[in-house]
């Protein structure tokens, strides 16, 4: 039972982590919360639905294609909704984000209707038994893909030139400009990567739960945002850790205490951690500069 729930928790945790990365990376660079990120995640999921069901594409083609398309949505959102008001008050950015969020939700409802769609991934579900443990191939796909993507991101951020530029930009925007980094390009790149990861997370939700709906961005987005805060917003490893912690805690809470309070466990742990460690698990203490 315990190990079984742990595996279930890791599965959803991996999904939360992939979405949380987008929140955290954008915050790390621009110090803004992209509240439209949940809806970008939803758009990615529906694009996947469109490619597989309406166009009949194979999954291994539809996955990268929808990820790329969602990356462009993210880059476009930043260009039209955030870039023009970059020097404005943070409140303006928040309002702009909510506007994008409402727009995307309604756009999806106009195109795909308000109902919940089955995802029909076409992947034959098979289960493996190890002792008392039951593992489905879908769980393995979810865990495998989320881990591979996170390792890939870790490699890009830490070992490539654009990754160094991302870290420099996130640390000090003006200093990054002054050594010749095209920070606008880095910001676009960051939105693109975050959105692509969110899209993959959405497709994983689709094949795992077999249900997608136009306001799914709200619940998943909020929980992933909690994961980003929990891990320490702005920190990439923090978003990963936060995602897994939220996934595992809510799964255990639902299994051992009450399934009705699933969401309460996720946000409960957030509140507790923030009381004792306001900067999050891996977040750095922020010193306000004068």
């Amino acid at each position, binding site marked *: 039972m315990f190990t079984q729930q742990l595996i279930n928790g890791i599965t959803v945790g991996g999904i939360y982590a992939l979405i949380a990365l987008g929140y955290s990376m954008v915050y790390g660079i621009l110090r803004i919360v992209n509240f439209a990120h949940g809806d970008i995640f939803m758009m990615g999921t529906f694009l996947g639905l469109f490619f597989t069901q309406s166009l009949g594409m194979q999954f291994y083609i539809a996955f990268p294609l929808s990820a790329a398309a969602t990356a462009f949505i993210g880059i476009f959102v930043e260009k039209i909704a955030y870039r023009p008001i970059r020097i404005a008050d943070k409140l303006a950015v928040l309002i702009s984000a909510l506007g994008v969020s409402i727009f995307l939700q309604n756009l999806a409802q106009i195109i795909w209707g308000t109902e919940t769609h089955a995802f029909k991934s076409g992947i034959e579900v098979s289960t493996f038994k190890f002792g008392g443990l039951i593992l489905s191939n879908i769980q393995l796909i979810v865990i495998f893909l989320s881990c591979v993507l996170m390792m890939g991101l870790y490699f890009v951020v830490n070992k490539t030139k654009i990754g160094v530029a991302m870290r420099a930009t996130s640390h000090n925007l003006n200093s990054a400009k002054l*050594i010749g980094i095209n920070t606008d390009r880095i910001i676009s790149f960051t939105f693109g990567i975050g959105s692509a990861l969110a899209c993959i997370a959405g497709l994983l939700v689709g094949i795992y739960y077999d249900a997608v709906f136009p306001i799914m961005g709200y619940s998943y987005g909020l929980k992933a945002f909690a994961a980003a805060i929990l891990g320490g917003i702005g920190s990439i490893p923090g978003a990963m850790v936060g995602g897994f912690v939220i996934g595992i805690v809510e799964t255990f809470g639902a299994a051992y205490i009450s399934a009705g309070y699933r969401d309460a466990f996720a946000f409960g742990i957030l509140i507790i951690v923030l009381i004792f460690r306001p900067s999050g698990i891996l977040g750095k203490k922020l010193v306000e500069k004068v």
Partner: protein
Amino acid sequence: MMKNNVYALEIKDLQVKYGVIPALKGISLKVEPGEAVALIGANGAGKTTTLHAISGIVRKAGGSVIFDGKDISNSPAHEIVSMGISQVPEGRGIFSNLTVYENIKLGAYLRKDEKGISEDIQKVYDLFPRLEERKTQLAGTLSGGEQQMLAIGRSLMAKPKLLLLDEPSMGLAPIVVETIFRTIKKINRESGMTILLVEQNAQMALYAAHRAYVMETGEIVTTGTSKELKANDEIRKSYLGLH
């Protein structure tokens, strides 16, 4: 225009506004190739804004910034760096989460000549031996003076034709300030690098620079050679604390 008439940097009637508040009310200045020029004045005079307008961090409201004969005042910051202007930011602006070595290397972000980069890293170490001793340390663990050395070293890695320095003395002990300014003077006099320096510490600025402009509330009020300004009664009283 004849070659010998091209200034390294020429600012004409430059205006910058923050919202509706004018920060620069139309300043003009010239820097000759190989010269070290200082911009001195009190807090809020517009010195940092001037540097930010040159390097493209803030946008002008009017006027022009001509570098090597071209108006650069509409170019984005990263392009200005690639044209040959490198700025040592106020408060150092080092990447404290990266090592000393990584910081220096990042200064060469736009360069592709790996061999030249490693040679220049060695030159930075020769200029500031302390940085070589601490190359594997996180930059955030350095002392203020060492961070200033790092910021200067990082800027030199871009191989600039014009080096801008913003308040290199800020927050440093007098003895460290002297070391830093001796090095600035050395960079200018030995390698002939053109320097525009912003400084509240007029004494040190006039020591390192050939000429200086004095700024007050967004305007240039006086200019002259360092020698002339040191002899000027008004300057002695207001900026050098002498009577």
